[in-house]
């Protein structure tokens, strides 16, 4: 039980840190691809939480949820890349601050 030696708070702090890195990426970057990566980071932060709690409670449901989130992330990336491709075709860049033609 190597994992058992590590207290749960550590996992939560790690998860929060990864989540904040994702948020930071979204709030500061302008490249849509970085956005996508940041979203992945946030999803994985959630995964860490799910698995850590599943381990601590000895309940496999959390791990199953983790698998679901990974599948979801894969689908999300596929759609996200598609959107980014279209964005590039229309604006000749993947800068999200330029795609503002739908505002008032």
């Amino acid at each position, binding site marked *: 039980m190597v994992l058992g030696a590590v207290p749960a708070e550590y996992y939560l702090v790690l998860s929060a840190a990864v989540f904040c890195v994702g*948020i930071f990426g979204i709030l500061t970057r302008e490249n849509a691809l970085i956005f996508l990566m940041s979203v992945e980071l946030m999803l994985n932060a959630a995964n860490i939480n799910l698995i850590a709690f599943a381990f601590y409670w000895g309940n496999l449901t959390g791990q199953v949820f983790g698998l679901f989130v990974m599948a979801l992330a894969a689908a999300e990336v596929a759609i996200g890349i598609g959107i980014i491709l279209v964005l590039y075709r229309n604006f000749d860049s993947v800068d999200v*601050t330029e795609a503002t033609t739908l505002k*008032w």
Partner: protein
Amino acid sequence: MAGVFAYAPAIAALPFVSFVVALLAGKYMPKKGALAGIIATAGSLGLSIAVLVTVFLGETYNETLYTFVGGDVPFELTFGLLLDPLSAAMLVIVSLIAFLVHVFSLGYMNDEGETGLPRYYASLGLFTASMLAFVFSDNLLMAFMFFELVGLCSYLLIGFWFRRAGPPSAAKKAFLVTRFGDYFFLVGVVGVLTTFGTAQFAGENGFPALAETVLNPETTADAVNTFGFEPATWFAILGLLVLGGVMGKSAQFPFHTWLPDAMEGPTPVSALIHAATMVAAGVFLVARMYGFYALLPTVLAVIAFVGGFTALFAATMGVVKNEIKQVLAYSTISQYGYIMLALGTGGYVAAFFHLTTHAVFKALLFLGAGSVIIAMHHNENMWDMGGLKDHMRVTYLAFLSGSLALAGIFPFSGFWSKDEVLYEALVHGLGGSPLLLGAYAMGLAAVFLTGFYTIRMVLLTFHGEARSDTAEDPHGVRWNVKFPLAVLGILAAVIGFLNPLPIKKLTGLEVDFLHQFLDSGPEALLTSSHHYSGLTHDYAGYSVGTIGGGEIVTLLAGAGASLGLALLGAGLAFALYRGAEPTRHTEKLGGLQTLLMHNYYQDEYQVWLAEGLTLRLSGAADTFDQGVIDGVVNGVSSVSLFSGDRLRRLQTGIVTNYAALIVLSLLVLLGVFAALGGWF
């Protein structure tokens, strides 16, 4: 014979067909639609006579034919036919006059080379159709609809010569003034429907019968919705509202101002409007729902006084007019005043009798005037005429017959009917309703003036020396003018013998045919004249009183007074205007003449009412609407416009900003939860 009732709707449908034909195909037809109109009105006349004969033989008809709003509603709205003695007789009068007017129009319009004839004959057809449908209506709403159509057609016809300045303005005036009255009528129709749940004229379920059961103290009737008023008060309000429409259409004071202006229309149209359709519609409506009015003494008194006053008031203006059609216009107003007087004093038969004789002699006088106007190349000033009797024999004799009837000279028709009107006013005035004597006095005074202006008109037009070149050598008229004049001229002389009441009273012979006819018909319809006289006696307190030695003395005194006054007026006119070159005596009246020529400044004060008062009021209302009501609405919208303009700046279109907002909100939410949850 009752099978003729199945064809009765065709009485109105035939002229309607002629309207469609003249409108669509009139310009390709040889007489531009006149023939269609003549055939249609002749057909209506034939059918009307058949209906009259059937009704005379004792059959009547009161059926609903079509329900246009029915089912689960508080009251049904229907079309139906009511053919009783009153409507059958009126149908014959209307279709006869309409037929003769169509024939006369051949001479007045076609032979004079007028343009727009299809439009003329189409309007004439629709006019006749709507009046006939109005006459046989079995309920108030249907009557109202056709009443309005009659008004519309008079607008179209008065404004027929729309390229000149006068006619369109006269048409507009006629339309607006009658519409003002009809506004009250409409409210009255709605009131009758909501009060009684029905607008049927006749029968046990008709609204007059329901009103009677409510007012009758001996019966315990189902309560009707009187909106919190005493039933008698509420019924009087309803009666007065409907009377508004009547006074507008029948040109009673103060709504008479449209009628003299309506002379701008073609003369045959004036004949139709004055004799049988438009103006007659008003008084016919009162006669039609007389079972309702007979219950309301206040309304009857109002009718009597309006009638008496109008009779006198209009007659004074007729005295000074110089145009032949103007004199006739004021005489029409005055004569309809008599009819109203008769209705108000309980003389139901007398009123209808005078309506009949007036229809004949006024149509005759207008057609005669039309003939004179053709001869004078459309100059209507009587001072340019004179001496025409030698040039136009038929017109002169017919016109004379009509004039003597109008003046009320024995034994022409007007004498019998006017005498009966005044007799009814006199006996009911003496018999316990002394107020009516005031109306009677006004009616009697008008007899003198009528005699005066009628004879003045005849003398100026036909006698003396020709006073202009056209009068020296007048334009001839053809058979299509002479034929209607001859028919009506003979009728005007003899139709009084339909109902010579004095002869009956003096000799005991049963010659009061109109009385007997209007008294016939099944009891169930509740439209017979003895039913009405019972109602006026029981509810309005009218009873017969006499002077001195009884009925005969009263009759002779009344007849003597009216005939004497008529002869006095006629004699005065004869003394003043005979001779080759009559002088303009009315100019000696000075200020009075000016007042009369300006029609008592009625037009001026009505224009002031419209422009000085109503326009200002509506201007103030407009200001209030624009400023206050619209101001509030505009204020609300500008607040949201302004805030929306500011708030939309939130939408930058940059994803990062939205994400930042979401995160910030989340943090704020967390902070709030933390503070409320006591985490710190």
